[in-house]
């Protein structure tokens, strides 16, 4: 029985892969594919919650794949941090899957021609789980590659011109960062003779300072590309908004957070002495400020949201740079909050697009009157993102700012100031969306001038039908003042469910923050993780 529970660590990686295989095997039946993917992700959510419970009660859960000892084999470890992120990310993945199933049914009917979407989506989930659970650098690389390979497919889904263009940029940047990651892995192995995190934690202090700093820089640079930290973030707003709404939502929620997780793991476990703190702090400040400046200047909902995504990565980096226990706990709490909120907002943007045919603020208006439910669905997570007091966004920011004030040196205080300013500007950015899309009536809805045909908005549909038909369809739905159109429940329900998760984070903030603090404590101590990996080897 204990061995069975020990093998549970494998489940979040293996189950989605098996599900993806089954989906391909049942490729002819739409219903079977939907059923398989839902059941698979539900099983993953269940195993992740058991893992979180066990990791919280009994310490990190380690499993050596294939029975090889951790030094030479692959091991998977679920400590509090990874199982917490695993649970929240699989919940988000499940909601997005339900939403995309709803969108597929709404747009193309029950027996929609099948696409590669469901298997690829499950593989993406497996990759994210593998990255969260892996206990060595190379397996982390493999996890990244699994999720990147499936994200390449998802971001170019349907192969329309706009998606190929934006996908190309994304793929080239990802390939470059993967190459950099391989160089980092090779250098680490050359310097220490191992890629296992626990062994690295023991061996790295013996290296000379310049070598250790170089390794740290290489790893940080790699993860910074994946997490879209400021100077390396330019690719993100170019590639994300073009993809279908559920794809953008799950990318925004998860992919950048995997990069942040990798930074958090390597910084706390491998380089706790932190020589690069000043650099990280500057990166955090610039990410926050420059990102939100970009958001303020945009006039498309998806692009505004993409820029706020970049900007709020800065908060998590800020927590990592402070490196005190409170700072790390704040960062963990903020990651959990941001995964759910950002995903919800992108799903709502997808609904806005479905309802009005566009997400361009110049062509939207009066949605609060026409679609009050949609307005509420946007309002709650938007205020949460901006950090209005009762919400979890406020609590996360407060913890980070408190940790910053405690640390007390001038650079950290500059960071605190940047965090407050970013928070205000985020409020301005979401208020702008609220004003122009939901509150103000559209200036001149009967205007006959031809709409500038905007390829960025094109092809919001999941299956990427030919762009022309989508365009005409969009134009007609946009011009009618469709008073009676209701939101499709199949798409709205998962969005509302995810919105409720964000509210639940606020309601149960105290136990949540306690878990985050215990996770930070565990990261700070380091020994439980190292013993769990090497102890039974």
């Amino acid at each position, binding site marked *: 029985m204990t061995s069975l529970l020990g093998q549970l660590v494998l489940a979040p990686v293996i189950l989605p892969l098996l599900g993806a295989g089954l989906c391909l095997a049942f490729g002819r039946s739409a219903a079977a594919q939907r059923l398989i993917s839902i059941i698979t992700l539900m099983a993953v959510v269940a195993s992740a919650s058991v893992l979180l419970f066990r990791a919280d009660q009994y310490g990190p859960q380690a499993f050596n794949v294939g029975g090889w000892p951790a030094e*030479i084999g692959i091991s998977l470890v679920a400590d509090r941090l990874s199982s917490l992120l695993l649970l929240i990310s699989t919940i988000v993945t499940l909601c997005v899957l339900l939403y995309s199933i709803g969108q597929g049914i709404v747009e193309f009917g029950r027996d929609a021609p099948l696409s590669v979407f469901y298997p690829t989506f499950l593989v993406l989930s497996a990759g994210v789980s593998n990255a969260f659970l892996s206990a060595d650098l*190379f397996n982390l690389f*493999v996890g990244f590659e699994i999720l990147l390979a499936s994200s390449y497919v998802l971001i170019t889904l349907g192969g329309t011109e706009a998606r190929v263009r934006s996908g190309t940029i994304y793929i*080239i940047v990802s390939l470059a960062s*993967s190459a950099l990651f391989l160089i980092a892995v090779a250098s680490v*192995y050359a310097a220490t003779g191992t*890629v296992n995190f626990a062994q690295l934690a023991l061996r790295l202090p013996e290296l000379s300072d310049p070598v250790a700093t170089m390794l740290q820089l290489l790893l940080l640079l790699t993860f910074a590309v994946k997490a879209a930290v400021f100077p390396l973030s330019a690719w993100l707003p170019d590639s994300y908004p073009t993809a279908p709404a559920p794809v953008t939502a799950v990318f925004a929620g998860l992919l950048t957070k995997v990069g942040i997780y990798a930074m958090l793991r390597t910084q706390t476990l491998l380089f706790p002495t932190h020589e690069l703190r000043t650099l990280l702090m500057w990166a955090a400040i610039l990410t926050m400020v420059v990102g939100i400046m970009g958001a303020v200047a945009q006039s498309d909902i998806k692009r505004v949201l993409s820029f706020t995504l970049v900007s709020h990565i800065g908060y998590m980096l800020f927590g990592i740079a402070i490196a005190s226990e409170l700072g790390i706990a704040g960062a963990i709490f903020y990651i959990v909050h941001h995964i759910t909120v950002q995903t919800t907002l992108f799903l709502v943007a997808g609904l806005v697009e479905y309802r009005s045919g566009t997400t361009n603020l110049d062509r939207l208006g009066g949605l609060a009157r026409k679609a009050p439910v949609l307005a509420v669905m946007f309002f709650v997570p938007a205020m949460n993102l901006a950090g209005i007091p009762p919400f979890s966004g406020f609590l996360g920011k407060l913890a980070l700012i408190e940790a910053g004030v405690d640390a007390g040196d001038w650079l950290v205080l500059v960071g605190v100031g940047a965090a407050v300013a970013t928070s205000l500007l985020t409020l301005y950015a979401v208020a702008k969306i609220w004003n122009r899309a939901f509150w103000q009536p559209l200036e001149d809805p009967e205007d006959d001038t031809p709409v500038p045909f905007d390829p960025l908005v094109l092809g919001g549909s999941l299956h990427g039908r030919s762009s022309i038909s989508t365009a005409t369809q969009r134009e007609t739905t946009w011009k009618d003042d469709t008073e009676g159109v209701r939101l499709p429940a199949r798409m709205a329900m998962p969005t509302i469910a995810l919105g409720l998760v964000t509210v639940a984070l606020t309601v149960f903030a105290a136990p949540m923050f306690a878990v985050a603090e215990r996770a930070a404590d565990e990261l700070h101590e380091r020994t439980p993780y190292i013993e769990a990996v090497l102890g039974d080897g």
Partner: protein
Amino acid sequence: MTANLMLIAVVGVMVGSGVTLVLERSLTRILVGFVLIGNGLNVLFLVVSGPAGAAPILGLSGDPMADPLPQAMALTAIVITLGTTGFGLALAYRAWQLTGTDDVQDDLEDDLIRRRAERDEVSVTFDEVDDTELPDEGYAGDSSLAPEDEVPA
């Protein structure tokens, strides 16, 4: 640890020429560049695994053996490179099919902003906030700013 200078030179040349190719505009060249980089990095893993000559098998005899782990890693990296190269080729073909060229194109919004900067115009949002009388004039009225006229043939 001993390192083979020849192999290191090979890594340097392959990765260097790969990077040069990646800086090109054509997607096919970029792909060839990444293939070169990928193979160069596989050689780097050989460098990392220490001196050559011994068998990489664990626990069969007391003879000195080569470190098998980097070879396993290089194998995995080869598979991944193969997969992404295949996908990239498909993408380049699709781009060529759609536009007649496989050049990597600029982002439309970036281009819009750049042309605004050339004309010394402020953004739409700025207009919206400060100029209350004719809010949408700047964008809707000037059709030459609309993105569609920039899409290359």
